[in-house]
């Protein structure tokens, strides 16, 4: 393995900046590397674009990004989900500047070319000037390959990418478990927090699998929650709390292993007294004991963070989505989730989940601003002494394969980061 030194670190190809147990700080600060990442990672991987509940009916749309491309994810009349590049085929204007909504199609505000939900060019005003010049059939919106699993919708710019199901591999089992937090109902997006930090996207990618920072950075949040919740999150010294490398850069970090599979409930765990009010509301709404138990146990979400390379984490009870803006600026979305069912049942459950989400997440939560301060500081500090590596070696000595064959270490170890950086290295060395 090539070692980087102060003399060589700025000249080495990007792939040489990732060693098994450490990476170079230049990965956070070099705009040329950032440009390559957009091409080689964000325009070749499967990028998470939406959850199916965000596109409830024909005509629903959501605008987002895949790599450099602004896109509109639509559900067309036949119920098919498409990812359309948000760029008019005439002279390039963006077609849609709304985050979400419902439409019959998209009409460009500049010269009024109009497109269907499937991206086909439908109409051109004063079309006689185009006679014999072009064929409308060739001028539909550019569409990206779009596939989904378990309600998670991904798109890729790479026409030759492996099928999504293969890219996810062993992750699929964990997506299934994550979705069990609907408590017998489908999972539904309830709302989205958006915030920025002044740091490289990989700092957040690391954070979704960083159990080590939790009691330090989130001490003020821990002090603000009830004793049972604090106890549940005290995984630092729990040997059964582990992180698995699931392959292809993905990992799962099991903070509350007893809540890994919400459907496996032997009935021995008492419901927390803080939910007594919720239980009473659900009883009044006519829910039976088993349903109440299923819903209330799921209010905190699942006991793990499932980290998908490169842009989404299914983090206990919400999605964390990252979007690189520049080498040192990143936008994060925290997507609150709840159950989709009859209002009298899911209303009180979802209100509980919304308040818990607001308590930690978002630009004014009790957790996010502290994480964000840490990330800003990594970006500032990493400019110094470029020969000094960023360490991702924690737990290397205790990493062993699990029964399933996944490289596994303690939840506070950096197994998930090593998994992500190995994928980064593979993709960045690919031409």
């Amino acid at each position: 393995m090539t070692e980087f030194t102060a003399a060589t670190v700025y000249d080495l190809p990007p792939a040489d900046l990732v060693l098994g147990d450490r990476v170079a700080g230049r990965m956070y600060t070099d705009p040329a590397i950032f440009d390559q990442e957009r091409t080689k990672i964000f325009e070749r991987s499967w990028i998470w674009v939406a959850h199916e509940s965000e596109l409830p009916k024909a005509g629903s749309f959501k605008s987002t990004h895949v790599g450099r491309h602004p896109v509109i994810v639509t559900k067309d009349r036949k119920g098919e989900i498409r990812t359309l590049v948000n760029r008019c085929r005439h002279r390039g204007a963006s077609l849609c500047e709304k985050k979400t909504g419902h439409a019959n199609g998209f009409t460009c505000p500049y010269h009024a070319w109009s497109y269907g939900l499937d991206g086909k060019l439908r109409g051109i005003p004063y079309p006689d000037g185009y006679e014999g010049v072009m064929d409308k059939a060739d001028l539909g919106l550019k569409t990206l390959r779009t596939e989904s699993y378990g309600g998670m919708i991904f798109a890729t710019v790479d026409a030759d990418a492996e099928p999504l199901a293969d890219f996810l591999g062993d992750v699929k089992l964990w997506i299934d478990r994550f979705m069990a937090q609907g408590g017998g109902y489908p999972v539904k997006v309830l709302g989205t927090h958006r915030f920025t930090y002044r740091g490289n996207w990989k700092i957040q990618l690391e954070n979704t699998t960083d159990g080590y920072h939790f009691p330090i950075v989130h001490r003020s949040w821990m002090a603000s929650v009830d004793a049972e919740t604090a106890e549940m999150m005290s995984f630092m010294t729990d040997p059964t709390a582990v992180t698995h490398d699931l392959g292809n850069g993905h990992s799962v970090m099991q903070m509350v292993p007893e809540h890994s599979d919400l459907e496996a409930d032997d009935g021995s765990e008492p419901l927390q007294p803080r939910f007594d009010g919720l239980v009473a509301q659900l009883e009044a709404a006519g829910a039976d004991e088993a349903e109440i138990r299923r819903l209330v146990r799921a209010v905190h979400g699942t006991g793990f963070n499932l980290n998908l390379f490169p842009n989404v984490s299914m983090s206990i009870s919400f999605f964390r989505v990252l979007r690189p803006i520049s080498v040192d600026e990143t936008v994060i979305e925290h997507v609150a989730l709840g159950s989709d069912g009859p209002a009298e049942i899911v209303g009180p459950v979802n209100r509980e989940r919304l308040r818990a989400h607001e308590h930690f997440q978002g630009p004014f939560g009790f957790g996010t601003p502290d994480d964000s301060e840490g990330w800003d500081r990594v970006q500032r500090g990493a400019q110094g002494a470029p020969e000094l590596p960023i360490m991702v070696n924690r737990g290397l000595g205790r990493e062993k394969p699990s029964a399933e064959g996944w490289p596994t270490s303690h939840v506070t170890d950096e197994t998930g980061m090593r998994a992500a950086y190995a994928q980064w290295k593979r993709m960045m060395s690919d031409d």
Partner: protein
Amino acid sequence: MTETLTDPRVVRAIELAWREAALLDAKEYEAWQGLYADDARYVIPIERDAEDFDDVLNMVHDDARMRGLRVRRMTEGYAIAAVDSAITVRTVSRFIPTDVDDRSVTLKAAQIIVAYKRGRHDLWAADVDYVVRLGASGDEDRFARKVVRLVNADEAVPAAGFLL
């Protein structure tokens, strides 16, 4: 009926809003908390036109208990974002009283905050709705409600270690 800014009841409500602005800029959160009635809500919504906040996601949705916890977080010294939070200077103005009687005053206002941290100035612009419950004297006036509607509420805002 036309409400005027010189109505002494309106003047008291404006004074309370300005007192609050000064306390927040000075990061005197304990005193700030004392300006709120026990049943008051302090909300920063994501939807600019939201009126009912319970069934939607908000940036802040605080009742007295959450305000208390928040003040503790801001003052206890363990929250790295609060310990190192930006210096803020805010202006609250463009007051429009919409409802005035002897017990309460409802006001709309504009708020501009400049937040300075590590060589950078961030701008926070918002419409603010206040409901002020009038006490026996100005000292006993309390907020019954404050809703801060950021101009960029549904876009990405920086994570902040201070209050709006």
